[in-house]
């Protein structure tokens, strides 16, 4: 295997947490890394450019670039403008949205990424979090 093929084989799916709140996005990203493994590429895109509550397209784009290793990126938005902004940067097959609860979906995705799964596998695993019963 040449270097390039090896790099591609080792590429991991990236995860971007899109939230109205910068601190919420950071903490969800932190717990996902903690449980999924510190090598799992998770980035936070929370709050507006000036630090308020809301969504920043520029932050979302920068976060995608920071976790994109070539294996695709899963966006996990909280709600409202986060979802709409995520939809604007969706790229079928490479940048996809998981329609899941923020914390549970992020953890499910991170654990699957840590196991070396592909983009469709990570998405499917995250989406199971939507119906997963806690009790």
């Amino acid at each position: 295997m040449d270097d390039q093929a090896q790099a591609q084989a080792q590429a991991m799916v990236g995860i971007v947490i899109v939230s109205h709140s910068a601190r919420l996005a950071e903490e969800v990203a932190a717990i996902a890394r903690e449980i999924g493994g510190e090598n799992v590429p998770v980035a936070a895109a929370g709050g507006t450019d000036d630090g308020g509550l809301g969504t920043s397209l520029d932050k979302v784009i920068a976060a995608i670039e920071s976790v994109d290793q070539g294996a695709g990126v899963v966006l996990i938005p909280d709600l409202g403008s986060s979802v709409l902004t995520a939809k604007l940067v969706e790229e079928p097959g490479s940048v996809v949205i998981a329609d899941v609860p923020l914390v549970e979906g992020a953890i499910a995705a991170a654990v699957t990424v840590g196991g070396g799964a592909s983009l469709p596998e990570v998405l499917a695993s995250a989406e199971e979090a939507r119906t997963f019963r806690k009790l």
Partner: protein
Amino acid sequence: MDTSFFLAWIKEAATAVQAERDHLTQLDAAIGDADHGANLDRGFAAVRQALADTPPETPGAVLVQAGSALIRKVGGASGPLYGTAFRQMGRALGDAPEITPAGLVTALEAAQEGVQKLGGAAEGDKTLVDAFAPAVRALAQAVQDGAKLEDALETATTAAEEGARATVPLQARKGRASYLGPRSVGHEDPGAASTALIFAALRRAAGQA
């Protein structure tokens, strides 16, 4: 309608949003998160800055640039929604230097389609679509009937304003207001109200041409 017409529209819309900023925020305080006026005002200020920094050469470019600035700077759901509306309009106009009334109708129809695809709202959901859709329908009909542009836009503005007022008795099915369920009834939707302002601005731009 040429590039300066569309620049005049954006300027009128920005002025109207600034003037109505507190009113829009009050409407949003009743059923939303009390930021619609401030967000949209910040967005349109960014639009005017972007258009001043890089003067566009075609009507389509005016609208694409305006939409992109709204998407980047608004921060709330109205950014992607209005941004998509303006960008879709701009794309539909292509690089034509002069736009006919029929071309304007086609572009507004593309804008409405883009908004509905992104946000998933239908008429009756108590969103900006409740002002946008009747305005586009009224404009299309008036243009088809051969009305003068100013009169056609007057009709469209009236339809948008009536559509916005008609959101008062509706129960929200989209956005934060939808969590309120029946308690969202009795308030005008802020997005529908701002859409009516933007159509009124288009009407005023036609009066200047």
